């Protein structure tokens, strides 16, 4: 038993401490967080625009929305990431992580748009009619009455989408970014140890997402204030 713990301690030291390998993971966490935050923000913006296109009365806008969601949902995100990195931004000089964030934002936007569209449609027509009957215009009714209620309804689905997005960023290694996954992988190759680096990677992702879930839970409780009987 003693030799087993000693073995583990040794492997741990080799994987994370020797040659400052923990620093790789820490900078990997930074990359994952950077890419995720920018991608989430972009995803919400794009998602909103595409949702409004999809709900619009204008045929042309509806077609744009439909084609967008169709293409993004119909192709793997790794493929999209590589196309955006190696084809679209091939000759543009921007930092790698920003290109990755744009790619994930574009990807997430398609899913977010469907969530938002469903959320807006879930609000009873009577709410719009009540707003309009008071003399509010369509825009005021949308922003003050429909969207706040829709956001509350779709909040859990949006949280889920963010969590999926964070985990999805684990593929940025394909375009040469050193995120958590890639750092773990790098340590694995350098040390010929699989267990420690991969479990370590998993734990880091898990903790990141746990913290995010807890924070979002607090927000959701605040949103539910008006449901208390």
């Amino acid at each position: 038993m003693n030799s087993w713990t000693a073995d583990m301690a040794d492997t741990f030291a080799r994987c994370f401490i020797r040659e400052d390998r923990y620093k790789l993971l820490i900078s990997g966490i930074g990359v994952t967080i950077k890419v995720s935050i920018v991608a989430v923000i972009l995803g919400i913006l794009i998602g909103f625009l595409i949702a409004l296109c999809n709900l619009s009365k204008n045929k042309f806008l509806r077609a744009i929305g439909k084609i967008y969601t169709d293409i993004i949902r119909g192709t793997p995100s790794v493929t999209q990431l590589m196309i955006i990195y190696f084809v679209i931004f091939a000759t543009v000089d921007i930092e790698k992580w920003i290109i990755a964030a744009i790619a994930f934002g574009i990807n997430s936007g398609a899913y977010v748009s469907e969530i938002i569209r469903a959320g807006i449609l879930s609000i009873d027509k009577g709410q719009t009619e009540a707003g309009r009957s008071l003399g509010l215009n369509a825009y005021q009714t949308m922003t003050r009455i429909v969207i706040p209620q829709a956001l509350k309804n779709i909040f859990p689905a949006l949280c889920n989408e963010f969590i999926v997005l964070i985990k999805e960023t684990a593929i940025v290694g394909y375009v040469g970014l050193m995120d958590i996954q890639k750092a773990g992988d790098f340590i694995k190759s350098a040390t010929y140890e699989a267990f420690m680096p991969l479990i370590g990677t998993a734990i880091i992702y898990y903790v990141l997402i746990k913290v995010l879930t807890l924070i979002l839970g607090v927000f959701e409780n605040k949103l539910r204030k008006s449901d208390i009987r």
Partner: protein
Amino acid sequence: MIKVKNLHKKFDELEVLKGIDEHIRPGEVVVVIGPSGSGKSTFLRCLNQLETATEGEIYVDDELITDPKCDVNKVRQKMGMVFQQFNLFPHLTILENITLAPVMLKKMTKDQAKEKAMELLRRVGLEEKAEAYPVQLSGGQKQRVAIARALAMNPEIMLFDEPTSALDPEMVGEVLDVMKDLAESGMTMVIVTHEMGFAREVASRVIFMDQGIIMENGTPEEVFTNPKNERTKLFLSKVL
């Protein structure tokens, strides 16, 4: 105040209104009765353009509101509407429900709107509910708030679309009392309802609609005790 000329409304192939002519004068309380599907709710909803007429003209204060160039938002500010399903905004408190429109449309400052809202809540007997959310209220209370919300815009006309049809029987009275009070204060009202007792008591005029046209139009006395039309007689024999 409201003039309706030859109003037609079609939903796809279904013709719901087949030529309505009506003149509502200031201070009148017009009660619209009739069987389901007779077009009475559609008629009411056309008056504030929640439904757009297929044909015909509607004038409000001599302004042609069926004209596509007309600013409907402005017209609607003059016409309060109360719905069968209340349609309170569930994410806002009672007070916010009432003050939202007057403040947003810059009719009042926040403080003025709040003062007006409290005065209206006192009038409908729900002052203590100002900070509550709609989900915490009973159906009757919700409908009284909905009336207060519509009144907060200082409308010239109030439209009621079956305001008591979604209520438990024991709550109908409290809503009708508020409406009665409003009628006595001289408000011009158009009410679609199945409450015949209320119609007889409060209406200055009763309209009986069936199959998309006005079949009978007169004082409550004339319509209820002396209906001329066979269909009116049949309808009343069923509901009275």
